[in-house]
């Protein structure tokens, strides 16, 4: 319950977490996250790590698509570039994880700027199709630049090391993902409060008005592309350190669409939304698969019909959320929170 919540300073009003209540629950969440790996099974940890990587990638996409309003169909390509960069750096130069992570991000950001460059002259759907072209071209490079990417067979990577310490297994990896998530989420949340982030939102809402207010559209769109793909590159580095193998099949167009689905289902332009969306879209297929395995015991012959159901559900989720809940899970969460804000009193 939150009553008597008055602000006396501007600093208090501008704080990210405004009330003691929210700070308290955030603390609880943090403690739970710290305890989680000690009590969870290996499978749960594996799922948590996958979700974590998805969260980082989704936050990246949400900066570009959610905040700056530039639809990107090439996000998986940027994740892939980060992953390949990190794999090549570890394999050939033996660089440790902490150096690979920013370098993978920088490489992705470089390509992000390259893909964003046409935004000088076009926007909207035309730009969206350019990112689609980027995705297709990246995939082609992953498959065909065999001397570097290993072609279809891909690359194998040794487990990541930090300060000479080999991180192997799900438990160790959890401690890599968690700080990166916290870092990116904090950075992104604060980005939206700065001059640059405000400019992104202004561009999304009405680019012409933004330009009239003195925002250099081209420059800020490039910032958006760069920061988004930087985070995507880091997600790629995490990805390759987690799976320890990488092939072009890991980064198809469908993966880009999955990231878009995450931020749509979670909530566009909302950091909490990207987190919710990534968790939701990673867990739903798992839950569906478990349910289908359960049915398989009774009717094994119906499986051929039920497995494609996952594709249907994926599409339905996107459509249903867009038609009925366009602000996503974050909005639902907000409503629930507001309900409990004064609970048990009505007003």
């Amino acid at each position, binding site marked *: 319950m939150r009553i008597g919540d008055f602000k006396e300073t501007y600093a208090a009003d501008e704080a990210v977490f405004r009330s003691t209540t929210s700070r308290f629950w955030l603390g609880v969440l943090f403690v739970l996250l710290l305890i989680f790996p000690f009590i969870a099974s290996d499978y749960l940890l594996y799922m948590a790590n996958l979700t974590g990587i998805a969260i980082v990638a989704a936050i990246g996409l949400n900066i570009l*698509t959610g905040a700056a*309003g530039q*639809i990107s169909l090439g996000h998986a390509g940027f994740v892939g570039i980060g992953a390949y960069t990190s794999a090549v750096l570890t394999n050939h130069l033996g660089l440790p994880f902490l150096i690979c992570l920013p370098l993978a991000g920088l490489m992705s950001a470089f390509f992000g700027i390259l893909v964003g460059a*046409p935004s000088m*002259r*076009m926007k*909207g*759907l*035309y730009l*969206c*199709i*350019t990112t*689609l*072209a*980027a995705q*297709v*071209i990246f995939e*082609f490079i992953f*498959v*065909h630049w065999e001397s570097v990417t290993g072609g279809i067979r891909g690359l194998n990577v040794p487990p990541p090391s930090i300060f000479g310490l080999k991180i192997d297994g799900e438990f160790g990896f959890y401690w890599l993902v968690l700080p990166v998530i916290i870092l990116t989420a904090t950075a992104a949340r604060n980005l939206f409060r700065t001059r640059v982030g405000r400019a992104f939102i202004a561009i999304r809402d009405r680019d*012409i*008005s933004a330009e009239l207010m003195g925002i250099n559209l081209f420059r800020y769109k490039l910032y958006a592309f760069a920061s988004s793909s930087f985070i995507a590159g880091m997600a790629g580095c995490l990805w390759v350190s987690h799976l320890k193998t990488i092939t072009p099949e890991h980064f198809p*167009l469908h993966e880009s*669409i999955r990231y*878009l*689905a995450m931020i*749509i289902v979670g909530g*566009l332009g909302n950091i909490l939304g990207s987190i919710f969306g990534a968790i939701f879209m990673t867990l739903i297929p798992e839950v569906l698969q478990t349910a289908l395995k359960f049915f398989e015991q009774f009717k094994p012959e119906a499986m*051929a*019909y039920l497995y*494609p*159901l*996952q*594709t*249907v*559900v*994926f*599409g*339905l*989720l*996107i*459509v249903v959320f*867009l*038609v009925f809940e*366009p602000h996503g899970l974050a909005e639902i969460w907000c409503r629930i929170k507001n309900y409990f804000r004064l609970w048990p009193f009505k007003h």
Partner: protein
Amino acid sequence: MNIFLILLTSGIAVGGIYALIALGFVLIYKATSIINFATGEFMMIGAYIFYTFTVMLGWPAIPAFIMVMAGAALLGMLVEFSILRHMLGQPTISIVMVTIGLSSILTGFAEIIWSSDFKSFPPLFPRSPIILGDVIIRSNLFWGFVVAMVTVALFAVFFKYSKIGIAMRATAGDQMASYSMGINVRTMFTTAWALGAIAASLGGLIIGNIGGVQPNLGSIGLKIFPVVILGGLDSIGGAVLGGFIVGILENIAGGYLDPYFNGGVKDVVPFIILVVILMVKPYGLFGRREIERL
């Protein structure tokens, strides 16, 4: 035999088929400003309807052909009526994502209904390859091209002379003005979806006749984007020309460059052309530059 001529002719033939599918895309975009990422899936459904009637029910080709058009029109209207009508006035990303979600739904249902196995049509045209002077073309490709061109021509005549066609062009030009002239704009949207679906499904039928049907047949639909962007999203003539350009260039590039890259050049060349064209002409070759008023 001259390899360049062979690549050129098969490129023209493929380009004609692209033109038909692109027509289906542009029809919808022009009338409703909705970019339809499910065009490829409309193609796939069309091919499957044809498969159902000819192979599973044993109908002759012509009635099955008519059923494909009827089924596609129904599908298009259903999609417009049940989903996209509610998306009017939403931001671009919502509309793009809704059609992407729709494509996923259609693929899933196709897999449930027809399974993911490879299916092929009974032979529709005489098997013997067509010989034009020096060049030999596969008969399926040649007849596919002929059917595509006839359909595109029929569509052109329809838009030029029929009452509905003129009303649709008016709606695309100015919605307010067409309202005041007594055109039912909503019906025009539905008609556009039906016609767009018909064009796409006929394209799918032709492609299915050449290479067989599978639930992922729709992924060919991605190549439509270079085609339509090249011509400019809202230009029907541009879509047709774009189809030919992409078909010819991808065939020639594929033919000459594939040995150096171990294949796959054909699939990426259209997108490279797309990026190059957009760098020079941001609204495609024939697209109208949008003038924004505040």
